[in-house]
């Protein structure tokens, strides 16, 4: 016999879909089928059942081969590494739950580490802009029920957040949007004709890297002032049309992604996107929301901000929290070889940092806590596989609109495997002894 578990939370992207159905074996040890999830979410659930999965911590030997070690030995190595290091970097946190993040912060404080999450290569610049100018935002529920103008700026939810449009932004029939997509107009700004752009009522094919200029032109168009004939590759008539379309809505929502955060201008792109939102509020209601990537990168920012006062790129090496992106951010710390030990959890800097920031990791004591084999585990000295959060253990996570949702455990992890939190508690207790902290 099998049983179906309903209302499961998908631990892949920041959309944090909460309507997944999972079929498990009667003893709860095997996950057999996943329904309602997107293709990426399904793969995440199903990969937990892979037969070739690493189930024991592994230490890299002198000859380059792996040697299986126990969780106790792994925790000993990790605690000793952090105790010895002058300036360790503890990076990741976005694919684990808030409970584990909180234990990690205790470890960071004791070892006077630099701590950072994947916002470093995602929405870090958004966080800088939010601190500069503020963020008039809303929840995805409000978008579903009210938004009749939906702008996707530099993001491609058809690929990166596959169920975002069907659950919240374009297709659902909400309280004031009873006709679903018929009651909404969709504008996409992207230098490529993405699959999202193909669905749009208006696609502004902006010249790559010229988002600031186009956003500025929209502010001018709202006010009906003079515009040059072409801005950022878009004719002024098209800009005025888009401006009128946005102004004529009852509730405008601007979603933005890596297209603006990772292009030159970076945080200034977001500054002006938020200023556009502010301007639109003189004519109608408008909100703006970053399309967060990892399912709990938002939660990591929340836990950091709650415990240290800053959402990412935090340096605790002086015994108190400092925050100065560019100085205390992971990529810059690695590129300047300022750190002497690398602790990675719930993310893959080996695959997603520029290679010049990955090379130093290979030459220092390093631990990678990740259920998968990744480029990061491939260059680390110790790989600690753990249970899949959101599949084999529950825990609190934050959706991209800052709504906390408790993930659910649906299946047992392989025998003897620990969760992130359990392993971090082992490390914390050992580190306290090494450092003589009560």
């Amino acid at each position, binding site marked *: 016999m099998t049983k179906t578990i309903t209302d499961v939370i998908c631990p892949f992207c920041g959309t944090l879909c909460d309507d997944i159905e999972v079929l498990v074996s009667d003893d709860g040890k095997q996950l057999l089928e996943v329904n309602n999830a997107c293709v990426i979410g399904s793969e995440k659930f199903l990969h937990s059942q892979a037969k070739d999965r690493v189930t024991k911590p592994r230490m890299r030997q002198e000859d380059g081969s792996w040697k299986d070690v126990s969780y106790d030995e792994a925790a000993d190595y990790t605690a000793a590494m952090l105790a010895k290091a002058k300036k360790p970097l503890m990076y990741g946190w976005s694919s684990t739950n808030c409970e584990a993040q909180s234990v990690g912060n205790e470890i960071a404080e004791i070892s006077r580490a630099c701590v950072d999450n994947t916002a470093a290569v995602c929405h870090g610049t958004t966080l800088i802009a939010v601190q500069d100018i503020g963020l008039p935002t809303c929840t995805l529920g409000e978008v579903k029920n009210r938004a009749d103008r939906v702008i996707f700026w530099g993001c491609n939810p058809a690929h990166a957040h596959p169920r975002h449009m069907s659950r919240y932004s374009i297709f659902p029939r909400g309280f004031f949007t009873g006709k679903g997509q018929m009651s909404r107009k969709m504008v996409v700004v992207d230098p490529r004709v993405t699959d999202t752009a193909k669905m749009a009522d208006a696609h502004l094919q902006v010249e790559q890297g010229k988002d600031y200029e186009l956003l500025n032109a929209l502010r001018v168009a709202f006010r009906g002032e003079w515009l040059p004939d072409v801005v950022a590759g878009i004719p002024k008539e098209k800009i005025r049309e888009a401006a009128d379309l946005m102004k004529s809505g009852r509730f405008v929502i601007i979603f933005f992604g890596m297209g603006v955060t990772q292009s030159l201008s970076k945080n200034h792109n977001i500054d002006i996107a938020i200023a556009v939102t502010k301007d639109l509020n003189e004519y109608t209601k408008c909100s703006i929301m970053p399309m967060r990537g990892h399912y709990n990168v938002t939660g990591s920012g929340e836990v950091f901000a709650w415990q240290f006062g800053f959402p990412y790129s935090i340096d605790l090496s002086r015994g108190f929290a400092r925050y100065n992106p560019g100085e205390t951010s992971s*990529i810059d710390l690695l590129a300047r070889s300022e750190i002497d030990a690398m602790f990675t959890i719930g993310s893959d800097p080996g695959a997603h940092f520029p290679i010049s920031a990955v090379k130093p990791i290979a030459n220092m004591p390093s631990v990678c806590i990740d259920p998968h084999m990744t480029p990061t585990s491939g260059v680390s000295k110790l790989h600690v596989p753990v249970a899949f959060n959101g599949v084999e253990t529950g825990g609190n996570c934050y959706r991209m609109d800052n709504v906390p949702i408790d993930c659910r455990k649906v299946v047992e992890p392989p025998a003897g495997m620990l969760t992130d939190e359990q392993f971090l508690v082992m490390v914390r207790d050992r580190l306290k002894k090494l450092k003589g902290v009560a």
Partner: protein
Amino acid sequence: MTKNITLNLITGRTIQQGVAIESGKEKPSYRTAAGIIEMDDADFKRLGLWKNTNVKVTSPHGSVIVKAVESAQGPNPGIAFIPMGPWANAIIDPNTYSTGMPTFKGTPVTIEVAINEPILLGIELVQVQCGVKVG
């Protein structure tokens, strides 16, 4: 002299890359999904390149071998796209300009045909570049 063209490289998520990272980055499917460069049909003609051929992509920050495929999300002449991952990160601009964020989008790259050069697997590529000894 080898013929080459210069394009503006952007990186980002594709759904195929998302599935591949969740099914195992050690597998060849990750290379199939992210060890590619998406180019416009016009740029293929400009370079005189057959589709699905290996190319060497070079920027001021490094070079990498990937497979050139026709843009699934185009047309976008002048723009090349490599899905996020170690292949893209071998060549993107690591400058953060004091924001902490590398410039993942908007790196000028040159493309040249490298039909006989192998495309490395994801983990292998990073290990080779980092000089990690693998047993």
